[in-house]
């Protein structure tokens, strides 16, 4: 019976605070739904057992983790906001004779109701949306799978359990808050005199320095592998810098404005500067959160969209022709056999072989320090030198591939620099000396272009004897880790995608048959990459990332929206009193409105502006990171980024408009 009473009371409270609780519940439902979808996707056997879905599953698990962590942070944040607003109410209940344990009971019921609605709503929405999401996912990854209407019981259980735990934690937190405070404190917690924030110059400077350093790293870092590592450093610095600048920097700047008497004592600036000082004190952290979330959304979505759109670029760079066959250490007499098998397989699959490129190359990793090139370098040599990759081919192959006829002596080489230093006169490879006879412009060997991580040089040597010599050096230097001499065939085949795949299978069979009965060491070892299959693989990979990017983008966007909403509402309650006083002292409602509007506008668009600055500065680094995925198309990335920013800004603006209305409703309410 008693429980019934508290339940009813809790219901009433929630209804009364609908303006606060509705968005909270909606957000919880939203995150719950998204979490369910992620968990269910990860566990969906129909999809996850598709070939190529291994990466997809990994990406989705990553998403699960992110949403999980996010749900905890986010629900706690909103809950603490709700508590702040409701303390007065609890104080009143207390004064009216409710003991703390009664308030506790009431809060327990409230949490139960909110939790039950959120979890049920989240699961329902998740189950309904699941099919749609799966369709989208299959569509963008190009996976084909038939599926019915499935409900993932373990998924639902996971979500329910997780959210139950989160809600219990918030309840415990709230109970503690009430336990700690006394009635008078609770009653007056809304109206404590706000102290003016102190200027924390040190923090502001730290923020500035962190941001400067992060930007510096983002712009200066050339090496993509380093970029990957430094990226996280830069991200941390940006987060740190953003928090410091929003909390301390903003106040320092505003106080400087205030010190300028001529500027400060103007009707337009007077109320807004002083108002902003307080606003920033209360909202700095929230705004920094919005800024970081926005940046994350923008980076994620624009990056993944670029990758997805650029899939063809990526695949074409790595696999210039339909078939890429790499034979490892193939003796000269067997090269013809390998090629013969390709032709046979193509014929049997009904394909015609089109343009073909073939060459033999030896790729070695070395540390280059000026003209000195070291294989298997020692620690000190590595520190002094620059890691790079040398691709060696013979003059004969060079002439055949490029059509450029040159003469070379035994100790002479031709060099083509893909990425690295030009201008050396000679190379000394582990003591073996070569004169550089000349630099050839662009040695356009297909398939060799996909190394962007390190510096790269193409070296043309006189003949196979010289190549053997170098091969011997590198085999001695690297032992088991030595490179093989690769015989590469790139061929275009005209026909259907399925035929190409069949041809690939057939070729593998032929190679196996060829190796039948031969000793292990003399097996013909070759690797076959079919562009079509690679494209599909990449599509799953990039599509999975895109899906995750957009999906998480949605989650973060939702959070941003909610934070903006709560900011507006809480500001509204606080500004209400100020608004009334100013009117009494002789400010017209219009002036008050204009002043508040300009402040609110500044405060809420500051994070967006800051996010755009972050994004601009991160652009060079992101570009280099995309290059790691073989996407080297800054224009594409720029267009994607700008489009994403545009769309985001519009959504942000709309949200601002809607929440501003809620704000003015509160401020304009008559007593």
């Amino acid at each position, binding site marked *: 019976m008693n429980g019934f009473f508290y339940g009813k009371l809790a219901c009433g409270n929630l209804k009364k605070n609908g303006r606060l609780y509705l968005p909270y519940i909606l957000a919880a439902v939203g995150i719950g739904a998204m979490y369910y979808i992620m968990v269910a996707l990860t566990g969906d056997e129909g999809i996850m057992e598709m070939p190529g879905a291994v990466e997809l599953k990994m990406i989705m698990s990553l998403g699960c983790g992110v949403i999980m962590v996010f749900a905890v942070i986010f629900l706690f944040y909103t809950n603490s906001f709700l508590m702040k607003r409701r303390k007065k109410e609890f104080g009143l209940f207390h004064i009216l004779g409710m003991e703390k344990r009664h308030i506790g009971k009431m809060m327990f019921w409230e949490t139960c109701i909110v939790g039950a609605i959120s979890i049920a709503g989240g699961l329902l929405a998740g189950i309904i949306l699941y099919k749609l999401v799966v369709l989208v996912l299959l569509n963008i990854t190009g996976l084909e799978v038939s599926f019915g209407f499935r409900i993932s019981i373990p998924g639902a259980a996971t979500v329910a359990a997780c959210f139950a735990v989160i809600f219990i934690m918030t309840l415990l937190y709230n109970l503690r808050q009430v336990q700690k405070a006394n009635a008078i404190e609770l009653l007056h917690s809304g109206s404590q*005199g*706000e102290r003016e924030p102190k200027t924390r110059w040190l923090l502001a400077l730290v923020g500035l320095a962190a941001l400067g350093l992060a930007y510096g790293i983002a712009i200066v870092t050339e090496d993509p592998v380093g970029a990957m590592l430094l990226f996280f450093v830069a991200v941390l610095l940006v987060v740190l810098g953003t928090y410091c600048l929003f909390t301390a920097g903003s106040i320092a700047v505003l106080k400087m404005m205030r010190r300028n008497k001529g500027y400060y004592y103007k*009707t337009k600036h*007077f109320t807004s500067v*002083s108002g902003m000082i307080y606003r920033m004190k209360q909202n700095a952290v929230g705004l920094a959160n919005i800024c970081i979330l926005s940046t994350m959304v923008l980076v994620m979505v624009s990056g993944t969209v670029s990758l997805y759109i650029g899939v063809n670029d990526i695949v074409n760079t790595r696999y210039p022709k339909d078939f890429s066959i790499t034979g490892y250490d193939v003796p000269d007499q067997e090269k013809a056999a390998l090629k013969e098998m390709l032709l046979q397989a193509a014929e049997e699959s009904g394909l015609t072989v089109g343009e073909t490129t073939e060459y033999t190359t030896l790729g070695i990793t070395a540390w280059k320090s000026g003209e000195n090139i070291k294989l298997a370098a020692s620690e000190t040599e590595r520190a002094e030198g620059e890691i790079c990759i040398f691709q060696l081919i013979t003059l004969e192959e060079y002439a055949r591939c490029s059509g450029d006829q040159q003469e070379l002596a035994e100790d002479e080489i031709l060099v083509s620099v893909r990425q690295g230093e030009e201008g050396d006169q000679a190379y000394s490879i582990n003591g073996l000396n070569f004169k550089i006879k000349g630099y050839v412009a662009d040695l356009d060997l297909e398939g060799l272009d996909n190394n962007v991580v390190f510096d790269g040089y193409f070296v043309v040597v006189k003949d196979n004897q010289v190549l053997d010599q170098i091969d011997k050096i590198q085999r001695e230097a690297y032992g088991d880790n030595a490179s093989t001499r690769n015989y590469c065939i790139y061929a275009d085949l005209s026909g259907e995608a399925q035929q190409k795949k069949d041809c690939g299978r057939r070729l593998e069979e032929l190679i196996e048959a060829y190796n039948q009965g031969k000793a292990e060491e003399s097996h013909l070892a070759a690797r076959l990459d079919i562009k079509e299959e690679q494209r599909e693989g990449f599509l799953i990979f990039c599509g999975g990332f895109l899906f995750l990017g957009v999906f998480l983008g949605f989650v973060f966007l939702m959070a941003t929206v909610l934070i903006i909403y709560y900011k507006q509402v809480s500001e509204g309650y606080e500004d209400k009193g*100020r608004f009334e006083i100013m009117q009494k*002292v*002789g400010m017209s409602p219009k002036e008050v409105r204009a002043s508040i509007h300009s402040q609110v506008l500044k405060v809420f668009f500051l994070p967006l502006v800051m996010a755009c600055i972050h994004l601009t500065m991160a652009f060079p680094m992101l570009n280099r990171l995309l290059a790691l995925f073989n996407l080297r198309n800054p224009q594409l990335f720029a267009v994607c980024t700008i489009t994403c920013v545009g769309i985001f800004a519009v959504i942000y603006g709309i949200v601002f408009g809607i929440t501003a209305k809620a704000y003015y409703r509160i401020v304009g309410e008559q007593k």
Partner: protein
Amino acid sequence: MAILEVNNVKKVYTTRFGGNQVQALTDVSFSVEKGEYVAIMGESGSGKTTLLNILAALDKATSGLVLLNGKNLSTLRDSEVSAFRRENLGFVFQDFNLLDNFNIQDNIFLPLVLAGKNYNEMRVRLMPIAESLGIKGILGKYPYEVSGGQKQRAAVARALITNPQLILADEPTGALDSKAAESLLAQFQEINGAGQTILMVTHSTQAASRAKRVLFIKDGQVFHQLYKGSSTNEEMYQKISDTLTVITTGGKSREA
């Protein structure tokens, strides 16, 4: 010449639910001469606050006329109201109404800043006022750092700094302890002595006893008025008490 004339003012509110009509002011007429110090007394619900709101141009009378310096308040356009208030009226409120985010000096400057005055002029105007009110030392402090009495004196300074035609004070001693109230009332007398017209609405007999004239409002009408003349504060206090007794016990109207 009368600075303020109130003729047959009537105010009727319609309640939001049910549409009941509530008559807050039935028929109020009085006038205030330049340099006067008038107190308006009445019980809760007598219509004091409504009257003050109408005088402050925060609210409009249902019928009747309010003239401030010959200007009819009901003909003011909405866009003019705020500027008019700023230029002609100074306000002192029971709960001070200082803004927490400004220090005392900036709070006092607020109406001048709104009027677009420059900083040097504001300083020049502030100094003598701050001196006479004894708040020079706390100009840099924030409202939450000073006492109630100091806050109210800051609010008085804010009301004075625009050189208003009329100061409207709404229960100015209501939130002060007796010592602070006493000193504020002395301040008011001093200001009035310097020629400032003051209209004060109050509950407090102590406060009203300092005014040159006291109007009593009951049931939306001016019920009675008392002139201080040459009476001492104590004599005036006694007279007001007597009058209040008569009013609350339901005695008939008698002219003084």
